[in-house]
């Protein structure tokens, strides 16, 4: 059983409805590896991030970290876990407490985890700030005095200060200006190399995922519908939804203008149809897709796909042309 999380929808009516945000998701990660989770809004990728960092409790499923089952029932257990698994959020404006100075913000994880004695704290904070490319002087400033890129560096400093093994990054560059994004991407790559970090990297930017990920997981309405080594995923995506995502991503090259978009309509949140949950938008749906929910099955080593027709697309082929 993979991870599962249901939320109760609060409505005015009497009927209680639930939405399954993450539905039987299994992911394995190795040391120093980057696993990217891609998908559109409402697919459950941020809920998955909260489950993995134990900010939310799963309704079903279990997690093993460093060969031990994860338990965070006591404060001590939670501390031990959060020292090793940290998170970087999308919005560097909302994720830093505005009335703390940068120095206090970066010292906080070191104090909570008792990693540094008070006399050494200041010099350690300076080291951590320098490791993310910031001048130690910035410790005296407040978040609002910093640019978006500097703020995200502070968030990364906070996350990496405890020397974690895994950092969950939820869209870490999408709120930043285009000209500073690559600086932050480079910083994440450097930290991974220097500290042996693993990243769970949540993003909707497929070009970026192609650059930094070792493994790609595609989520759709709470499920993983395709999982593959990045190189193989981008060379030969099997699931029609993965292929639609790739085809829809605007390529920054006017000589490669893509034809009409490949999928129909939009996700209807919380309403997974019977059978395959993608079938109503799928240009390739056939009768069986309405009857059985396709299981996630291996089509090649390390390449899993949840599609009845996933075996038909070993080599990249063109989508049938569709009009909107």
């Amino acid at each position, binding site marked *: 059983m993979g991870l599962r999380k249901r939320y109760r929808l609060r409505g005015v009516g009497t009927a209680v409805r639930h939405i399954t945000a993450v539905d039987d998701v299994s992911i394995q990660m190795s040391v120093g590896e980057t696993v990217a989770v891609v998908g559109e809004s409402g697919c459950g990728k941020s809920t998955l991030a909260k489950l993995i960092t134990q900010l939310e409790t799963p309704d079903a499923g279990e997690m093993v970290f460093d060969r031990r089952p994860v338990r965070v029932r006591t404060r001590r257990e939670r501390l031990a876990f959060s020292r090793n698994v940290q998170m970087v959020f999308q919005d560097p404006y909302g994720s830093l407490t505005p009335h703390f100075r940068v120095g206090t913000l970066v010292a906080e994880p070191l104090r909570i985890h008792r990693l540094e004695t008070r006399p050494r704290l200041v010099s350690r904070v300076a080291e951590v700030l320098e490791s993310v490319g910031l001048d130690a002087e910035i410790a005296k400033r407040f978040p609002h005095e910093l640019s978006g890129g500097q703020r995200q560096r502070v968030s990364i400093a906070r996350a990496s200060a405890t020397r974690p093994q895994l950092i969950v990054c939820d869209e870490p560059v999408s709120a930043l*200006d285009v000209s500073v994004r690559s600086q932050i991407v480079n910083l994440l790559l450097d930290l991974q190399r220097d500290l042996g970090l693993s990243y769970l990297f949540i993003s909707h930017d*497929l070009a970026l995922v192609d650059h930094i990920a070792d493994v790609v997981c595609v989520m759709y309405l709470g499920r993983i519908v395709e999982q593959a080594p990045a190189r193989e995923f981008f060379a030969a995506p099997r699931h029609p939804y993965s292929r639609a995502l790739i085809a829809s991503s*605007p390529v*920054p090259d006017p000589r490669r203008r893509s034809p009409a978009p490949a999928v129909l309509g939009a996700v209807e949140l919380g309403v997974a149809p019977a059978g395959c949950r993608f079938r109503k938008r799928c240009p390739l749906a056939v009768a069986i897709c309405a009857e059985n929910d396709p299981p996630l099955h291996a089509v090649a080593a390390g390449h899993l796909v949840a599609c009845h027709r996933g075996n038909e697309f070993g080599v990249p082929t063109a989508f049938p042309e569709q009009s909107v």
Partner: protein
Amino acid sequence: MTNDAVAAQSASPTLDVRGLSVAFRRRNGLVRVVRDVDLTLGPGEVLGLVGESGSGKSILARAVLGTLPRQAEVLGGSIAFSGGDLMRMPPSQVRRLRGDRIAIVPQEPMTSLNPSLRIGRQLTEVLEVHRPEIRSKERSVRAVEMLDLVGVTYADERLAQYPHQLSGGLRQRVAIAMALICGRVELLIADEPTTALDVTIQAQILDLFVRLQKSQRMSVLLITHDLGVIAQTAQRVAVMYAGEIVEVADVNDLFASPRHPYTRGLLDSLPRSGRVARKSHLPSIEGSVPSPSAAVRDGCSFADRCAFRIAICDQQAPPLDSAGLGRSVRCHRWADLTAGFARRDALL
């Protein structure tokens, strides 16, 4: 340069912005957010306006629409639209143009649509204001036709729905329908029209834009920070940095051989498979986007982030130089850098 683009420029332009400067009044004086901008948009042309936060691109659009915020002040310049100067027209006349011959599709359809009015009412209201000669029964028919045209399914049922009942993509389609319903739009300003949308929906909306632009023969000013969207949609591109236009070129020329170091830096920094090894460093522009309220420096506004800065860049502001057919660049060194860039590109 494509034949279309040449044709578009030789005809008299739909929109001609000359020397436009806009400033915000602040306690400590004026902050210039748009500085001496020249911009031409030909009939039936899609011009992409690229810039980061604070580059002045949205203020430029609002100046054209006549919807500048109260604390903004136009310091000079003209905005010619089909013969008249929008800057010198009485506000009532600009209001009549807006929603009729000049329309906007905003970034956030949730905030631009009135949450307490049904879709049908919002659409017919535009007709009531701008086309009073159309009778009320006919207005609803027109609204349904318009929703059909922009790909909204079950159009007649949608008229009774409220904006919150629609998905983001559908709301954006409704916003496009509102922009076009008068049927006389010559200039459509789209300010980050797909930024709030998912990629598959973005692709559908961009495709719709391109088809409508052709069928309605409009000029489109497409404002975005997303170079992918520009490459897929625009015919010509203007790049803004710190309130100034720093480069203008045909879309193919701009992406094939960017001439301003900023444009070049932006394009190089995009992860593109095949151009840099996986997991290797991406080229990046040092520093960060200047805040509009920061003091305007002497010389070139990009100099402190530029890898090619020389002494003159700190002393003199570079002019927007003509750099070939339909191209212009605001850089002291564009000519000698172009040769060097060309050599490097040949190696790639």
